[in-house]
């Protein structure tokens, strides 16, 4: 029996690595390998035509002194700080509203989910037109309500906030996740609190929110990582303008790498972005200990 156990152990070891081999190759070839390589490239000057030249920390010195780096970090953080709380609250409340058993509720669920599966290039085109100051949907509504027309994403102060509005429209994914979580909360908890005389609002605060806190945390984390990497809609809709008001970090990095062929400098930028995201994520994890409630702990 003992020998048999050891055989099984050995065969599981062998087969285990056979099964995860493609994954190991993928991790080394497409993730950790490139990361290390990019760290190396960040200490060089390289246009991909002439050979790379080692220049020490010069790229990092340059990015510290480059005003556009600060601008683009500011724009990206501003966007993330607006979007993450706003999207978290709205998607959560929509999910709460959707969590009822009435006929046709799945139609509503579909309505909130669909914008998140639309190709982002297409939604960028659509919102470009919605935001159009002359003929767009929003100003048409504003005019018919007698409100003054706006310049939306085409104004320096409006660019980021209106991109946030568009992003909230696209975050239906989180609604579906919340909804599944809400349906998993045991009914008995609510019945017990009702017996104790709690009203609907009190059960929401003391049962729904704590029970959902791990899922809220997960969605916030995903929203944060996504927001920090915003690229496509800005690339298409504003190209960073007006006056760099929507110069997101990824857009700045893309320009340096693929327009000006500055692979070394852009790699240094990418490490800065990585460190910022890592720090924010770590901060979110740390803060989560105070408010995220895990049932089985």
């Amino acid at each position, binding site marked *: 029996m003992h020998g048999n156990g050891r055989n099984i152990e050995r065969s599981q070891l062998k087969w285990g690595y056979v099964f995860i081999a493609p994954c190991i190759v*993928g991790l080394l070839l497409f993730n950790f390998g490139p990361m290390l390589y*990019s760290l190396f490239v960040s200490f060089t000057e390289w246009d991909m035509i002439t050979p790379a030249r080692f220049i020490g920390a010069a790229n990092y010195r340059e990015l510290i002194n480059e005003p556009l780096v600060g601008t683009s970090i500011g724009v990206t953080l501003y966007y993330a700080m607006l979007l993450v709380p706003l999207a978290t609250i709205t998607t959560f409340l929509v999910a709460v509203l959707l969590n009822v058993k009435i006929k046709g509720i799945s139609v509503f669920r579909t309505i909130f989910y669909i914008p998140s599966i639309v190709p982002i290039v297409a939604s960028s085109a659509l919102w470009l037109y919605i935001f159009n100051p002359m003929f767009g949907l929003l100003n048409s509504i504003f005019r018919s309500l007698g409100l003054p027309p706006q310049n939306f994403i085409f104004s320096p102060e409006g660019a980021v906030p209106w991109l946030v509005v568009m992003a909230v429209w696209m975050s239906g994914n989180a609604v579906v996740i919340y909804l599944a979580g809400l349906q998993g909360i045991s009914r008995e908890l609510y019945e017990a609190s009702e017996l104790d005389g709690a009203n609907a609002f009190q059960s929401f605060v003391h049962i729904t929110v704590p029970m959902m806190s791990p899922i809220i945390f997960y969605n916030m984390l995903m929203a944060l990582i996504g927001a920090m990497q915003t690229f496509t809609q800005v690339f298409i809709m504003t190209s960073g303008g007006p006056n760099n008001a929507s110069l997101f970090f990824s857009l700045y990095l893309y320009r340096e790498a693929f327009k000006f062929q500055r692979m070394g400098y852009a790699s240094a930028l*990418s490490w800065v972005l990585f460190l910022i995201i890592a720090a924010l994520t770590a901060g979110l994890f740390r803060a989560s200990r105070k408010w995220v409630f895990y049932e089985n702990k």
Partner: protein
Amino acid sequence: MQLRVKNSVSLALLVILSIIMVFPFVWLIRSSFMTQREIMTIPIKWLPAKFGFINFINAFKVAPFGLYFLNSILLAMVNLVGQILSSSFIAFGFARLRFRGRGLWFALLLSTMMIPYTVVMIPQFIFWKTLGAYNTFIPLALPAFFGNAFNIFLVRQFYMGIPKDYDEAALVEGASYFLIYRRIIIPMAKPVLCSVGVFTFMSCWNDFIGPLLYLDKPGLKTVSLGLQSFIGQYSTQMNLMMAASSIAILPMIVVFFFAQRYFIEGITFTGLKG
């Protein structure tokens, strides 16, 4: 939550929010059928005088959307096959076998979800360009055969729910682990593999930055990339732009309505067990 939400206030709120959510699509469709003159009228006309397909026909005439469709579908299908094969295979190792190093590799795999694409984008680009794969589909298709964290995690969670008795019974019969994977686990995992399939199709169809980096020949463009250059060229002709956008959106809507179940189940599964 038991807000006694059957009350009309929350239903009314839902209806209002839904209208706001749907309105951009109404605007999209309405504008796709308008003439340039109708678009430019102030105060605006809410509906076109007649519903003709002229904008769609013109969009296909001025840009090769047929070709873009073929390219996108080809890429999406190869990715779909690659992701289903790799995630079902790799997840078997992580879910149903016990061996040293398993936890470490799994943790490393999950950690890649936190790596921003921007960090690996440049070195990967250099890698593929050096290999001569620039302006081919290879950089956009080959990686699918090595799995990705999200899909492997999703399939692994599903496999964990299948009782181990099946494997043990098959082992006693003398089956190899590969046979167990092929004959027992895969047939049971069809729903989750369908979820992987629809997610892959969707993310591939919607991907913009990948094609933007690697495809520079007009003949290779995907729908998203083709639509982007179309927007650049016809930004003043909003009716054409909207018709072209509708063309790009339609396949996703069709896929969603046929595979709704797999979308919802897949999202639910990762979100809750994550």
